[in-house]
């Protein structure tokens, strides 16, 4: 971790320090770290555990449980293709394959230049305007395979 990373970590953890009688909330702390650093580096587990007053194993257990917590930094932009049933029914699988081919990247991975990380999601609540592709917090609806290049183009 860089120095900046380390101080970001300490800062993000400060509001999560348990105030008796409240018990430590591991998930809340991990989400706070992720929102500050973009991910939760495994090297930070001990420090998180110390601040919360819990064991390293408890922190690792929660970290590995939730799919939205990431231990590696994503690319600059995170693409999430919905594979929920409404998007599947509208052939979102074809959109996913087109993105994979277009970026030459597989699900769960990023391209060498780290512009995009590609992931699947299970529903964005945009089922009536499906298939759905989320890039960062932008939601794109009714995406067709031929839309893919122009959809990704603005994200640098």
């Amino acid at each position, binding site marked *: 971790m860089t120095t900046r990373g380390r101080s970001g970590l300490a800062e993000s953890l400060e509001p999560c320090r348990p105030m008796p009688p409240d018990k430590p909330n591991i998930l809340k702390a*991990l989400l706070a770290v992720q929102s500050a650093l973009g991910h939760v580096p495994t090297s930070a587990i001990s420090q998180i555990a110390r601040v919360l007053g819990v064991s390293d194993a408890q922190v690792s257990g929660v970290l590995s449980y939730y799919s939205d917590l990431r231990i590696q930094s994503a690319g600059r932009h995170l693409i999430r293709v919905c594979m929920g049933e409404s998007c599947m029914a509208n052939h979102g699988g074809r959109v996913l394959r087109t993105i994979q081919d277009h970026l030459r990247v597989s699900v769960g991975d990023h391209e060498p230049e780290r512009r995009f990380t590609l992931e699947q999601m299970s529903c964005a*609540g945009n089922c009536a305007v499906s298939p759905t592709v989320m890039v960062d917090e932008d939601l794109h609806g009714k995406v067709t395979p031929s839309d893919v290049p122009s959809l990704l183009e603005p994200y640098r």
Partner: protein
Amino acid sequence: MKTTRLYLSNDTSSLAAGAGRLADAWRERPEIQLIRTSSRGAFFLEPMVERDMPAGREAWFNVTSDDLPRIVGGIGGTPVTEIPFLEQQTRVIFANFGITEPLALDEYQMRGGLKGLAEARRLSPETIIEELRLSRLRGRGGAAFPVWKKWQVAQQTGAEQKYVVANADEGDAGTYCDRMIMEGDPFRLIEGMLICARAIGATRGYIYCRYEYPAAARAMKFAIQKALEAGLLDFDDYPFDLEVVVGAGSYVCGEETALLESLEGRRGVVLAKPPYPAESGLHGKPTIVSNVLTFAAIPNILANGGAWHASLGTEGSRGTMVLQIGGRVRQPGLVEVPFGLPLRDVLDRFGGGMAPGARFKAVQVGGPLGSLFPESQLDIPICYDAFAEAGAILGHGGIVVYDRETNMVELARHFMAFTADESCGKCTPCRVGSVRGREILERIQSGQGAAEDLMLLSDLGETMKTASLCALGGRAPYPVETAIKHFGEEFRQGVKFTRPA
């Protein structure tokens, strides 16, 4: 220059359909004033722009930025009351949608909001619960449990601290009504939660909102702040503390005991019941966990009386059902109707038939754990009893239509893979069963299935149904089995040989 007030939805799905681009294009136009409302839920017409006309609101559909002169000129609009998709609905919970600004508390109040809460403040906890008993409202999160019974348990359990938790995890793919309520009518959820708090004597509340809904979480936080400033969160003798908590992407965290584990910051695993959360929930204290839609149904019940609510719907299913139509239909969107309408009518009258060029294959009702229905079984009425009798569920009201291009073996594999991914691991039938199920379906998909594989799948399904701790494992076999039952040929094609004995 006279400015024309135009109404444009700010709902996430409206934005995805192009409302955001429209708002950007029109930002600097002096001839209009753009009001950002919630969405009517007719997403196939979005972006939809409305304006006031002498006889009421008129709407323009699938608007592009070039349509502005027509709209300002008042040319070619359709009276909102004449849109068949909307006109045939009974909007009770969604009565404000498309009309109000979500974060305008005065508009909420002007349209009847806060009346239920005022009633609740006047009534004793027992009388509030009696009103709910009369309403015969059942929970909308999936299990359809009578709401009043849970409240009564929590009310009668002595404790110095009780909690109210809104389940906003909305994990079922194909559903979006909770998201729409939080983004579009957030005070309704707050009001429902306050009535519950008043009835059971709770002093703290949480809204557990899924990670995928950032706009909903933002809107709720704003609305809570406004409610606080308006003094709504104060009961006579104590304040009610309400907080939005964001989850981290786990389907099973929608299950109430797992949700409470997650709220306490732990791994969201399912716990054995009893004890039920109403007796011993968050931090071991009496806790009402209810779905967002359930809470949103409550203000009207207090305002209009339980008997009014019970007068809508069918014998075992009172009130309105909020359906969310998605998949390969012409008119995807949100539909609120009294219980009892046949599924076929829902698909034809509201869904508008299949999307251009698509042909019907099957429809799934009730999310990823819901059963599949072929064309021949569409006459089933939308109500809890008929669905239970058919071994199906209404769940949270998701309806997804699949077309002929859908490969049923691939779909079945997808369902089992979903359960395998999302299983919390606590019980063996779900944890191991779903992985075995997925493997068998992968074999069949690759054409390497053995003759006994379909039998094996069926045995596995029976074990999962009877021995799983929660409905994730317990319901996972249903979509797979209904796919095999109605589209068996596709599965048999993947079964190539008989394994030597």
